């Protein structure tokens, strides 16, 4: 099977379309960052409290907001995330002012749990919430109520039995399809070791609320900006390392072109995150790093072919040579990109909510990374060589000779 049979496309002749398209995307992203959505940083890059909650039924977001405001929590952001059938909601509170100590950091989380318990639990019943209970607290409760009548067998036996039982029930509760929410205590009867006596004991001490806290992030004021800075510095350092290596293996201009192309990819991807109002989290940073690696890989493959073709092409126009090199590697480019795209598309479609932002960055990144090797990196190279060829910086001849020497190394 074969997609392309010796394609002959004049890529460099279309460079202005490419550059135009890239500029349009860049400008759209910049405009979005400047006046539309801005950049939505994930909680780890800001500061505050972010709690992800899964509800049994569609929750009343307005009521949650009203209750929070009653408790003097202003500026809460409450939004549904993931597919609607999941009833997942992300609640975010800013840090309280002057909050730097542990207790103050916890305040936001406690406030959210309090409000949710008031709305979706049975706060007044005096019972505990089974859906948000830890296995330790369930174990302690069972030890006291002793539904299996183990007291006579000694504390040690009772403790280890109830510990295992509590862990098994929590495992059952937390794994799909329950995913953290049990609607009826009878569901627990499918857990090995759970007898009707255990269930009725649980019912006396616990109730089943309609929510479960899935994820909590509390970020102090200091970390956020530090992390952001660090991510940028480390990425720049990584790019510099790549530049140096390509400089050593090819020529400085190859490295510069490749790095500019990668920059272009990252900027456009970030712009798209702004356009779609998606959060830039630490995981997205990891995806951007992946995109850098991927785009660089793609560019080097094309450049490598150019380098290989140079010795046999003294009469050929440099732009033609670049076209020929791109065409020769086109089949590979489409195939690799297509396959990688397939893999990340699977991640995007099936990977779940945690991985969503990450997968989005990857899907965009694979497309842009492939495009930029042809549409950005190569034209820069051609532009530079044509200037050199017109007696600009160096004679064309000398450039070629150096390239031949490099290629033979």
């Amino acid at each position: 099977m074969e997609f392309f049979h010796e394609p002959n496309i004049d890529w460099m002749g279309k460079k202005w379309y490419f550059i135009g398209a890239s500029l349009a995307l860049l400008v759209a992203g910049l405009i979005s960052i400047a006046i539309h959505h801005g950049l939505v940083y994930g909680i780890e890059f800001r500061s505050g409290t972010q709690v992800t909650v899964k509800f049994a039924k569609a929750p009343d977001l307005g009521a949650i907001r009203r209750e929070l405001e009653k408790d003097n929590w202003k500026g809460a952001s409450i939004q549904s995330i993931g597919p609607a059938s999941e009833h997942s909601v992300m609640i975010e509170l800013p840090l309280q002012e002057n909050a730097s100590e542990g207790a103050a950091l916890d305040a936001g989380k406690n406030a959210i749990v309090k409000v949710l318990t008031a709305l979706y639990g049975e706060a007044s019943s005096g019972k505990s919430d089974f859906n948000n209970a830890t296995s330790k607290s369930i174990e302690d409760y069972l030890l006291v109520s002793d539904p299996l009548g183990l007291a006579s067998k000694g504390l040690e036996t009772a403790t280890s039995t109830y510990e295992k039982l509590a862990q098994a029930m929590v495992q059952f509760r937390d794994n799909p399809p329950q995913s953290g929410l049990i609607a009826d205590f009878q569901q627990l009867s499918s857990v090995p070791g759970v007898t009707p006596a255990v269930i009725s004991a649980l019912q006396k001490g616990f109730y089943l609320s309609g929510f479960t806290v899935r994820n909590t992030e509390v970020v102090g004021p200091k970390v956020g900006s530090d992390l952001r800075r660090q991510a940028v510095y480390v990425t720049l350092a990584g790019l510099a390392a790549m530049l140096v290596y390509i400089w050593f293996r090819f020529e400085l201009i190859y490295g510069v072109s490749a790095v500019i192309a990668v920059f272009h990819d990252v900027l456009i991807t970030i712009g798209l995150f702004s356009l779609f109002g998606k959060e830039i989290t630490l995981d997205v940073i990891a995806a951007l790093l992946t995109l850098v690696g991927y785009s660089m890989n793609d560019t080097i493959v094309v450049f490598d072919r150019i380098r290989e073709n140079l010795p046999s092409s003294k009469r050929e126009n440099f732009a033609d040579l670049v076209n020929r090199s791109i065409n020769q590697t086109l089949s590979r480019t489409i195939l690799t990109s297509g396959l990688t795209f397939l893999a990340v598309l699977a991640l995007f479609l099936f990977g779940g909510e945690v991985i969503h932002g990450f997968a989005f960055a990857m899907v965009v990144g694979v497309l842009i990374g492939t495009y930029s090797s042809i549409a950005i990196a190569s034209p820069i190279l051609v532009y530079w060589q044509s200037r050199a060829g017109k007696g600009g910086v160096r004679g064309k001849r000398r450039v070629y000779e150096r390239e031949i020497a490099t290629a033979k190394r």
Partner: protein
Amino acid sequence: MDHTRLRNRTIFILVVLIACVLGLTGIPKNFQQLKENLANRIHLGLDLKGGTHMVLQVHVDDAVKVVTDQALERLRDEMSSRGIPYSTIERQGISSILIKGVPDSKSGDLDALVGQQFSTWTLQRVPGQPQSRLLNMKVSEVAMIRNQALDQARETIRRRIDALGLVGPEVADYGRGDYELVVQLPGVSDPTRVKNIIQATAMLELKLVRGGPYPSRDAALSSFGGVLPPGTELVPGNDESSGSSGGQVWYLLNQVAAVTGRDLTGAQPSTGQNGQPIVNFTLSREGAVRFGEITGKNVGKQLAIVLDNRVVSAPVIDSRITDSGEIRGNFTTQQASDLALMLRSGALPASISYINESTVGPSLGADSIRDGIIACIVGFLAVMVFMLIYYRGAGVNADVALILNLIILMAALAYFQAVLTLPGIAGVILTVGMGVDSNVLVFERIREELRHGKAPGAAVAAGFEHAFRTILDTHVTTVAAAAILFTFGTGPIKGFAVTLTIGLIANLFTSVYVSRTIFDYVLSRRQKGEALSV
């Protein structure tokens, strides 16, 4: 290629493969055990399996301050015993002591004193104040105290968490060089209790009560005419008479403690005479001597038990106490056992604050793992099926290389006990992408050489030779960047770099060495004139 070489290569590849598979699975007796072995060997990050991750700041300057204060006391004593007069002596900032009013005639004596007794300090004149001197702690000493405080805090926190009996906790430096520690608690979804235990300084001091309790600080001050007697201090505490909900009262205590937490050799939760939870402690021999002397002299007086600068209780000394005692307060059973734990693990050398906390609930963790596995399987299957369709015979070759690559990567992760996180999976995806790319580069090249009329054997050789240079360049470039990320990045960025680096090295082996060996095998079995399936 001759057959011996081909056979040796095949054996080598099989050995690597078997070593990796056994490294991952062990020798399981059944499917259940296989699953357990895999789960034990591949360490999933907290973002994938649930748990709490906290970053905390150790305020190491607290420890520097304590050393400075101790030096100040020593300096005061030494100056009086050597007859060097001064008007005031006080701490400045965290690591300096300002001495005022030293007459010129005694300046040489002070220099000598510092030279002999304060070798980690330097004395300097204060511009414009001829009778003042500034004693500065040497920078190297400050750095050492800070690092010691960090080490000690790390160890203390580790002891406390270990004592809680959690599964697989981790305490480590955060890696930004800012005296920060990262604490990972797998499976903990309600970290409040753990946090309180970690954060408590647990500085225990037993001090004689000189007066009080007073209802407020002002009341205490006014009963002494606004000036406290020398060597005393006011410390807040709970009003014991009004029970656990009691208001705040103030005690006047001796500034110098009779014994401190450092004199403890043990602490155990227990129940008192009325069945209320208490903490029993035992003292070291040295502490017991001191404690016996002080309690013997002060029978009938109150002794305050001060924890983190707060009076927990102030019982009356009934008789001379030597090597053991008990702490009563309005504790619950849990509080008593937590307090005993903290006292056993020692006091923190510096205060601690939390700067970041993230908890992934276990249900989210379970969902992430399931979704992640489904997505990965779908992705890999799609890629593998496509390679088979597109390259037919050679597609098998590529798929074998890809699977072997993943096995080696996972085995290496297990071997290095690296943790697989979400960003780590990003690294795996890039690895797979570049792995497939390597195969595609080689195959496309072979096709190209075949089109130019080369014989299959020569085409394969030329294909690998040409593609190898490209593959090497792309891999080295990416590994160079990954090395930078690993060196300077923290947490998630590091995790990405680790899997990527391992994956790419494995990939060089599989997509070049293994793939070439498979081609050679296919070529050696080929009938003359038969076409190469690529």
